[in-house]
């Protein structure tokens, strides 16, 4: 695999993470328990869609075959998506969705920080723009986790279960494959081992404040980055892609 191919694949993974998470969050629009949280969630989803657009557009330019952001989002199949398994998991209840945001954003924050120092100018710029949004997202999800964990007995137990359930999807974030390695070697990309340490430190601080327990390390699911997804992604894509598949090029 050439350096350029690795860069395209890597950029698409970043785009897929942002898009798939955004699509899950969009499912919660008009379903949040409070108006204020409704606004926050919709804003955050739009932040992620904006990031996905920048990454897809750049991947299309790198590839040079005229594929647009929409082609990547709507005309690829499940196996071609490289998003993390964590992000495609169904929303569940408020605590489940929140823990998913929290675990991913703690990782994404450090990933973007590392990308700001990589040798690819464009990725640096996109990361510099995205990190401001994600810093606030993480602050928000951390605040919520503390309130759920350190809230009532019911909210504490539910938050702990959400954390335990999501934990098996966190290993994949830090397991480097050939694309991660190529990105690191050729473009001074993020080192996943050091991000793992920072991530652990950051989430441990919040989890302790939330009076919750960090789950023990256990068997970790993997494959999302390589396109081997859980059964949930197909349904998500079916809903998201339906219109463009039925009416290619439709606009309004």
């Amino acid at each position, binding site marked *: 695999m050439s350096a350029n191919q690795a860069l395209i694949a890597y950029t698409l993974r970043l785009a897929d993470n942002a898009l798939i998470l955004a699509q899950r969050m969009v499912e919660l629009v008009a379903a949040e328990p*409070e*108006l*204020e*949280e409704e*606004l*926050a969630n919709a*804003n955050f989803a739009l932040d992620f869609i904006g990031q996905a657009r920048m990454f897809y557009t750049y991947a299309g330019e790198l590839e040079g075959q005229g594929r647009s952001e929409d082609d990547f989002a709507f005309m690829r199949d499940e196996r071609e998506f490289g998003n993390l398994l964590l992000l495609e998991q169904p929303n569940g209840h408020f605590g489940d969705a929140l823990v998913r945001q929290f675990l991913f954003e703690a990782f994404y924050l450090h990933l973007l920080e590392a990308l700001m120092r990589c040798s690819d100018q464009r990725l640096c710029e996109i990361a510099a723009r995205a990190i401001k949004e994600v810093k*606030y997202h993480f*602050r*928000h999800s951390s*605040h*919520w986790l503390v*309130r759920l964990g350190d809230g009532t007995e019911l909210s504490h137990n539910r938050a702990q279960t959400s954390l335990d359930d999501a934990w098996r999807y966190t290993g994949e974030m830090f397991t480097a494959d050939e694309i991660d390695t190529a990105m690191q070697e050729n473009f001074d990309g993020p080192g996943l081992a050091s991000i793992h340490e920072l991530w652990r430190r950051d989430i441990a601080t919040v989890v302790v404040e939330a009076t919750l327990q960090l789950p023990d390390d256990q068997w970790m699911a993997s494959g999302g980055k390589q396109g081997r997804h859980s059964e949930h992604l197909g349904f998500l894509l079916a809903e998201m892609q339906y219109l463009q598949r039925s009416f290619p090029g439709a606009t309004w």
Partner: protein
Amino acid sequence: MSKQEWPLYEVFVRSKAGLSHRHAGSVHAPDDQMALDHARDAYTRRSEGVSLWVVRSDSIVASDPAETSAFFEPAKDKIYRHPTFYEIPDGVKNL
């Protein structure tokens, strides 16, 4: 299960450095810190501000509408308290 409403907070936004905070509206929130988050998400999403204040609505002491006449009307016939007899120099914008 009866639903307990979150307390109400009043939101004040400073639109740019040097200007004062102005009342923008209100949000519900479970506590002070979340009130700030909610105010940010509800009232500054179109870059309306550079600084935010939130305060519990029940911490605000308000004048009584029944006392409006005693409170405010005595000022009405005292035009000499208004600085309207000065000429404003050209080029002064924020006066």
